[in-house]
């Protein structure tokens, strides 16, 4: 029964999302109508395509829910669908590893530059140093390492020196691959500064 429950749940979610899009989002976030009349010439407005898609999604979701609810018993051998408690645990760990990696990637460079400046270094802002060695690599190398190492740690469920080495080598290879041959390419997060 797990499959049908998830499909019905998905259908309900999509019905609500499609209805909200159709009756709240589209009317408030598109400035032209479904059709537009300008000098007696009728044209298709920007709202036409999203409205048709949202309306179709509403109908399809209802059909999905109804067929899953009434036809579920016939699909005894269907593959297992849906998320269980373990999936949520995995997602939480995945989010921590990726989030930590991205956080370090974005903030390491600017924070280190601020720290050096606060100790009287007067090296300027990160914006001025985003193409200078070693500042341009700080965020990517540290954040990339924690992302790769963190994910390996999640899957292997243990810390290992070989995983750390593999992560360091991978990040260094990617840094060399993108930064050395291409002068115009910016590693994350340098393009945002």
């Amino acid at each position, binding site marked *: 029964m797990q499959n049908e429950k998830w499909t019905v749940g998905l259908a309900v979610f999509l019905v609500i999302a499609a209805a909200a899009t159709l009756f709240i989002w589209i009317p408030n976030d598109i*400035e*032209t109508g479904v059709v537009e009349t300008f000098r007696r010439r009728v044209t298709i407005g920007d709202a036409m395509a*999203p409205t048709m898609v949202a309306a179709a*999604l509403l109908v399809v979701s209802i059909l999905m829910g109804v067929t899953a609810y009434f036809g579920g018993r016939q699909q005894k051998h269907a593959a297992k669908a849906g998320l269980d408690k373990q999936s949520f645990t995995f997602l939480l760990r995945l989010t921590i590893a990726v989030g930590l990696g*991205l956080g370090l990637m974005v903030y390491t460079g600017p924070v280190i530059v601020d720290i050096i400046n606060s100790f009287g270094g007067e090296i300027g802002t990160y914006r001025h140093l985003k193409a200078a060695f070693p500042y341009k690599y700080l965020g990517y190398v540290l954040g990339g390492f924690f992302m790769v190492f963190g994910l390996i740690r999640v899957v292997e469920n243990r810390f290992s020196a070989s995983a750390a080495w593999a992560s360091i080598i991978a990040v260094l290879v990617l840094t060399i691959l993108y930064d050395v041959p291409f002068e115009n390419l910016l590693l994350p997060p340098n393009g945002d500064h």
Partner: protein
Amino acid sequence: MGVLDHIWLGVVAVFTADPIFTLAGLPFSTTIMMVVLGFLGGIVVGATPGLGGPFAMAISLPILISIFGFEPDALLPVLGFLVGIMKGSTVGGAVPAILFNTPGTPDSLMTTLDGYPLTKKGKPGKALRIAHFSSVSGDTFSDIVLITCAPFLAILVEKFLDFPEKAALIILSLAFVSAVVGRNVWKGMAAALLGMFFAYIGTGEDGYPRLSLGTDGLAEGLPLISAVLGVLIIGEVFKALEDMWHEMREKSVITNIKMKGDQKLHFSDIRRIFPFISISAGIGTMIGALPGIGSTLAATLGYATGRKVYKGDTPFGEGAPEGVAATEAANSAVAGANLIPVLSLGIPGNVSAVFIILATESIGGFNPGPQVFSLVPDQINQEMVYAFGLFTTMIFANGLNWTFGGVFMRSMGVMVRVPKQRLLPIVLLLTLTAIYVQQTSMFAIYITLFFGLLGYLMRKLKISVLPFVIAFILANNLEEAMRQAFAVTGSDPWFLLASPISVVFIALSIVVVVFFARNQKDLG
């Protein structure tokens, strides 16, 4: 300028443009080098369990664009590399299936049925040679069909289809892909509709970017590359990591199997497997030409048909060389034929075709579709030159496959030792980096991760991601065709039913959905 002139210009563009070096007086062009590199890389990736052609295409595309830029000159080297990967990964996928009973991709699952028993009997060399010969034969046949059919189909489309018919054809394609791929028609349709909806965010003709919630990030629209790579690659990485986390990684012991007896492929072997290759190549090509039906179904049908006509001593499933031949010829024959809808209609039918479209959209100068093959008197249609250049790279890659592919493929058994749980996090970082260097915005990375999560959830809920991706790509084309059709029919609200052809397309769309909804089964 006639067709032959365009063919010649395409061949010349591939072999002589931008030469890197000269060997015995012959120029060695950038495009040729890229086909070779893509082909070798494709075999390596195909032979690595857990990776596959789409992974390699996704990762390499942004790097290639960084190297070659966005000028039309970049088209043939980039497409050549992608074609090389497509061909290489198809043959490479048989290696772990035959040597280690580990199908690298779903297509190779059927190859394990007879390939691994042959290995256990001490005939891994012979099994790999049969797989290679069958795969290349199927692929070559499929390419011949593509090269001969796509231009004629395109000319017919251009001659008979106007805007209303083109809009109806896109609707038919989306209905077909939604209905055929995956386990549940309604889920497939919901995926396609969601893909279309996301494509409409931040686009439109009005000055205010629609559905952008007043934010700058959404005002430019959701980047195609973020949506496609997020759903296809990042979603798959998340799902694969979770599967490995669940299993806590099985300790895979690599057994060394000693070769016994004759490992070569003789003419008598070829004569024996040739009927199976022929049947499977036909099945694979037909399936490949239909949007949405992948090589997995082709392999299954090829194997099942082969088993029906087989009358040999060793039963299928116990090491029959014909079983390997039937499977490999069928799944490889899909590769060329699935470019037929791309080049003749501009409609991508599978993941490899999605990356070809993505490359052409990113670079510009070549818009796959029926106009590619239209002749303009006294002028060169540069798009037709690129199309024949693309065909030339495919033929050249086949030549590589016939000559060096087998030897290189047989040396790739070592790739099965690469630990997948360490490779996939690196693939994740590589994909995110590749997207960043192209978009130069962390927002693009966050969008990619959002689509990655969406792709993960779709996989967990057994919703096929292919309709989502294809609909995302085609959504704006459909809207544009509808706007044009509405205008040319004098604002007729029934423009989709304005001609017999579009009526047939719309009726077929309904029939396909109703038929598959009544006979729901897994064809994915």
